């Protein structure tokens, strides 16, 4: 290997029974870069990130962190290597406040000996500072996460992962359920995380969201890779065409034209 990358997937293959979910998928990401994984529903995006984040194990191919082969048997292993995944369901409890959610499972504490309590003042000030640094405007760390908009929740989840030392941030369709404006807000935080030196893997089915933020694009279709492109090698139009299934779409248009002619 000539260069080592922060996280690299090499010819990842995954079967579910006799179904080939992924076949020979390769890509990589470095610190301060965004690699986008694009694909329609059923293309294998979820299977791929589940392997990267340690939920599933690849049947063939290898994962390398800093050039060394790793075998994740659980999400905990991946987290130990600094790979954090922000899922669509966000791992946030809607009825709990922003600061309680931010530190859930890793509460800062103070006290004497066995009598320990959560340092709420410190937690709130860290939440304010961290979110502020990413330009996220949480009015009040005491408000329940359930009262935040979808974009704000995604942003808090990203800020949390970055704060807890994520070197690689895997974002599972962070913009798919959002309106145009909210999606823009989340994309801004993706770039902010990148600028803080985090390697980002951004999964989406929307090339319009991927192109402005990505450095590298991997297009998946029915479990196979249609190629990995640096930003300089591809424009938005070509990316969209590939995403939409390229030749398949052209055939479909042809058929529709034929039907229209018959009528």
């Amino acid at each position, binding site marked *: 290997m000539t260069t080592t990358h922060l996280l690299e997937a090499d010819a990842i293959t995954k079967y579910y029974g006799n179904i080939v979910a992924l076949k020979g998928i390769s890509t990589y990401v470095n610190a301060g870069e965004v690699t986008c994984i694009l694909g329609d529903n059923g293309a294998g995006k979820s299977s791929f990130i589940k392997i990267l984040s340690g939920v599933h194990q690849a049947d063939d191919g290898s994962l390398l962190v800093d050039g060394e082969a790793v075998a994740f048997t659980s999400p905990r292993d991946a987290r130990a290597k600094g790979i954090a995944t922000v899922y669509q369901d966000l791992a*946030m409890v809607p009825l709990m406040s922003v600061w309680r959610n931010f530190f859930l499972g890793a509460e800062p504490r103070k006290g004497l000996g066995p009598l320990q309590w959560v340092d709420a003042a410190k937690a709130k000030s860290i939440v304010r500072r961290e979110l*502020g640094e990413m330009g996220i405007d949480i009015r009040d760390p005491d408000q329940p996460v*359930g009262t935040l908009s979808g974009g704000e929740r995604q942003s808090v989840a990203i800020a949390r992962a970055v704060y807890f030392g994520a070197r690689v941030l895997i974002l599972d369709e962070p913009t798919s359920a959002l309106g145009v404006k909210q999606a823009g807000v989340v994309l801004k935080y993706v770039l902010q995380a990148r600028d803080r030196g985090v390697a980002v893997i951004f999964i989406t089915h929307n090339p319009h969201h991927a192109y402005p933020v990505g450095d590298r694009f991997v297009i998946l279709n029915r479990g196979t890779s249609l190629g990995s492109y640096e930003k300089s090698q591809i424009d938005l139009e070509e990316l969209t065409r590939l995403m939409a299934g390229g030749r398949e779409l052209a055939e479909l248009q042809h058929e529709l034209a034929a039907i229209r002619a018959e009528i």
Partner: protein
Amino acid sequence: MATETAAHTQHDERLVSVGPLTRLLSRPDIGAFLGAIAVFFAFGYFARGVNWLGDPAIAAGWTDQAAQYGIVAVPVALLMIGGEFDLSAGVMIGSSGLLLGYLATHAHMNIWPAILLVLLFGLAIGFVNGLTVVKTRLPSFIVTLATFFVLQGVNAAGTLKLTGTTAIDDIDSAKGFTSARHIFASDLTHWSFKVKVLWWIGLTLVGAWLLAKSRFGNWIYSAGGDPNAARNVGVPVARTKITLFMMTSGTAALMGVIEALELRSMQSKEGIGLEFIFIICAVVGGCLLTGGYGSVIGTLFGAAMLGMVQLGIVDAQWDSNWTYTFQGAILFAAVVLNLFVRNRAQKVK
């Protein structure tokens, strides 16, 4: 504050000003607090035959009753916030009191080690409840209903076999009884406020502190609010739930000790039916049936309200059967109020 100022300029369309009154009214325990005050003054009006509002002896009466409900309602509320129920919390009072009676009168133990054994027994039952719920993933409603009926049978059959009657008497014959009664079941002053009331308030403060300030409290909220999300970020959800079950059964055992020492005897049917009262206290206190939200301080006001209803109906010289109707009406009003509060809390602004 600088970031908040920036927020104003960037996203003003989302900003709704939240006044201190709105903030106060969206607390989970505010309903129980206002309700307790309303009930207090309502009986001030209806119970005119006695000096309801001013007589300390009257207050000693209803606080005694409220403590009876409120002590166990503290862990029951925490358990509900953690997303589970314990229907065996009532019958556990009877089981524990009877066990104490057995150890004191038949095994001839000193009361202090006997109390320790009873508390350990409570923790053990809670551990079994919790472990079963966590391992089988069955609803705790069913698991603890089973525990309830098993213990109910053991209490009745065991007592009959032991004494030939439906009660264990003469618990005061045990060594150390006087000193134990002083700690758990004595009167405080010449108005006969019970020491039990101090236990009630003390446990409430401990429970409220745990929930609001400790890491365990954060875990309780998350275990009830979204156990999957909690597990994803490393919260030991199973351990949290088992601990809550142990706290509930352990506190019910403490209540059994208090009653056995106060009454000097224990009926085999003692405690049965109280499990629902505890749940009513917690719901009135703002705990959601679905978990993840609630208040221990609110539960204290819930217990106070039910205690006042119990005694107030007698003092107002109404038929005491109306107590159940009142309890039901209070529960219904509380559930509707909670629904409203939760919808507010989850509303996307």
